[in-house]
């Protein structure tokens, strides 16, 4: 079965409803994958998305053991579903210099979109968010605009426009 057979809702978009300013890291403090995952999980804890950031971190590590979510072109989209969260949210993190993420193309990652969601069955919204992010950042100019965005709101607007294109 291909993704085309999945029924994905048109309503939910990344920019509207899932991104939050409290889940925006304009510049990652760390440079390596393991530390990046820690910073992401800690941010979820600080933003009270989860009471158990360590549990989320372990899940992120397990997901990466399945295959790297660094999909190339400077993008990583780690994603997990867990009972440790009650809402679907997306954390956006940037790194101007790039972080080592064992990406499929071996290139440094500059933009990280972390998706966490509760384990709802089925959850077409979760799959749609994954697809929308990949679609939105396929163009180099969108990726550059995200890196250049001076504020969270500006970055959100870039994604809003990219999703609609």
């Amino acid at each position: 079965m291909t993704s085309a057979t999945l029924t994905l809702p048109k309503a939910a978009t990344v920019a509207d409803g899932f991104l939050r300013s409290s889940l925006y890291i304009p510049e990652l403090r760390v440079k390596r994958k393991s530390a990046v995952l820690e910073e992401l999980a800690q941010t979820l804890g600080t933003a009270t998305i989860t009471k158990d950031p360590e549990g989320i971190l372990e899940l992120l590590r397990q997901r990466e053991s399945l295959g790297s979510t660094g999909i190339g072109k400077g993008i990583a989209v780690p994603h997990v579903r867990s009972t440790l969260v009650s809402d679907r949210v997306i954390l956006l993190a940037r790194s101007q210099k790039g972080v080592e993420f064992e990406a499929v193309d071996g290139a440094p990652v500059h933009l990280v979109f972390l998706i966490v969601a509760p384990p709802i069955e089925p959850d077409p919204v979760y799959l749609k968010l994954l697809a929308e992010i990949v679609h939105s950042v396929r163009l180099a100019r969108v990726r550059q605009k995200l890196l250049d965005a001076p504020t969270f709101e500006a970055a959100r607007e870039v994604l809003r426009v990219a999703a609609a294109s």
Partner: protein
Amino acid sequence: MLRDARNPEIATHEESLGFPMGNVKALERTRERLASRIDEQLLKTYERVSRKSPRVVVRVEGGVCQGCRMSLPTSSASRSITPASLENCQNCGRILYRL
């Protein structure tokens, strides 16, 4: 996670987006390692429920089991859950949790 990796629909969708899902064996090994730490009786309950319900552990929201959508008895809905006293839905048998 392992369930998603084994689900052809989800796995194909993810792979079509560029996410490799090849190393399912690694997840299976982790699952085995973690399962060996779980109380035998509890694991049996999990396996039994999983045969009829793909998602065994479900959230309680507003006093309702999110697996079968049945309201839980008031006494059950207000009970706090600890690892030593896991609660099952009296209707569907799923293991319940609250956030």
